[in-house]
């Protein structure tokens, strides 16, 4: 049973249409990867779900409830948390305070500061540093921890690995099973196609605001995606 369903979503920035009739299904415990070139609309899709963009109420259905266009603070308290593009920690807050911000949704659950420290031990000695003093990888860990602190059912990851060293990305990717174990489903945007296919169960390729390839990750090859990127039909 799908518990997040996007149906025929059209999204706009002013007069500019960024998404055209996008339909996506997320099942409980699933990991979905969104891939596509820059400006294809992947981030826009995540933003539409998170409540940053005014989209029709019926376009996003979650737990049998229409939540499209609800304010972002309501969406997160329903259990959909975000790791925004570029991390966007609060620069004048310490790591500890940044994590505390994740609890503002008021959702109860298993995630706590200690549990975040368990999956990202490197943050332990950084607790009282400002968010702006951390390396990119550590910032990403805080951003993920901050999202988890809201005890979400779904986490929307925008750009899992952008601007990070491969070693750091692997460290973060290693935490994904732990995150899933707490009953979290994931939709993530990833530039690296091979990594996206490896980490996900299901994949959607987005090009110019439209889905032009989708399927089980294990059935899709790098070459399929490449063909989809260049806009060629896969016979």
């Amino acid at each position: 049973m799908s518990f997040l369903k996007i149906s025929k979503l059209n999204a706009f920035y002013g007069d500019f249409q960024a998404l055209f009739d996008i339909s996506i299904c997320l099942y409980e415990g699933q990991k979905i990867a969104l891939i596509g070139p820059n400006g294809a609309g992947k981030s826009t899709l995540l933003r539409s779900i998170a409540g940053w963009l005014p989209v029709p109420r019926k376009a996003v259905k979650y737990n049998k409830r229409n939540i499209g266009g609800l304010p972002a603070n309501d969406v997160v308290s329903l259990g959909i948390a975000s790791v925004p593009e570029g991390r966007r920690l609060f620069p004048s807050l310490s790591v500890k305070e940044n994590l505390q911000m994740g609890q503002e949704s008021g959702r109860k659950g298993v995630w706590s500061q200690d549990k975040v420290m368990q999956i990202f031990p490197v943050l332990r000695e950084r607790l009282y540093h400002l968010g702006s003093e951390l390396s990119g990888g550590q910032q990403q860990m805080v951003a993920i921890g901050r999202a988890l602190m809201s005890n979400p059912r779904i986490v929307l990851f925008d750009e899992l690995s952008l601007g990070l060293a491969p070693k750091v990305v692997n460290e973060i990717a290693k935490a994904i099973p732990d995150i899933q174990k707490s009953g979290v489903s994931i939709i993530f945007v990833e530039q690296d196609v091979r990594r996206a296919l490896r980490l996900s169960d299901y994949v959607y390729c987005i090009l110019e605001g439209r889905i032009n390839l989708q399927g089980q990750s294990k059935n899709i090859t790098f070459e399929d995606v490449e063909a989809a990127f260049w806009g060629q039909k896969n016979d």
Partner: protein
Amino acid sequence: MIELINSIVQGILIGGLYALFAAGLSLVFGIMRIVNLSHGDLIVLGSFLAFFTVSTLTVPLWLMVVIIPLAMGVIGYAIQRSLLNKTIGPDVLPPLLITFGLSIILQNGLLQIFTADNRKLDFGAIEVMSVEIGGIAMGWYAILIFLIAVTVITGLQFISYHTRLGRLLRATTDDPEIAKLMGVKTEHIFAIAMAIAMIICGIAAILFAAWTSFTPLSGPSRLLIAFEVVVIGGIGSIWGTLVGGIILGVAQALGGYFDPAWQTLAGHIVFVIILVLRPIFVKGFR
């Protein structure tokens, strides 16, 4: 020489009142990026409310001192929630226009109700009592103003860095979009920030109402002082407002020491000098 030192001390003490004028303006600009052009008129509104409660409603002084800041806080919350929140966005012009309009409404409304007469709050003997330390005479009332200013600013600093509300205020200042994404009702936080700013305005309004006389048109000059203090002390810096207030107070006192006609002008000149030099040497007294 002793007279010169005396002037400087007076300047420092009155700097506390200037800091109170500025703290609310700085808070509101820091968090919501709203330049509140009606800030001075809201202070004058507070002064008139204080005057009205004491003289017409004959409420005892101690009770008025409690009621007015709270009432101003409620007014602040209501204005933000019902009016100013709707103007916040990428465009900086709507909040400017709305607060400018609010300023005109307040000035003329007060003029209608209270006429253009000079008013002053009477605090009794404390206004003229003074203490002499080493040949420097300090008015008790000026000392009281300064102590209240330091207390208010320390309190504001404490709230900012040691409470959940402070964390929410700082997070919203940093990035309102992400704060909302974390589940923060930013509209509410904005209104709380305005309420805090207006509580401080209420305190400043009472102190100012007993310090000098005021009319419904006194607002813009208070706004000017607040602006200068914020620019001198650094936008969004809490202690900076106290430093800015003291610098402006001392500049005016020194100007007045050399020539009474120079009192106000000296403050403005110091402000311009700091405005020009500031980018060169500091980014705020943080």
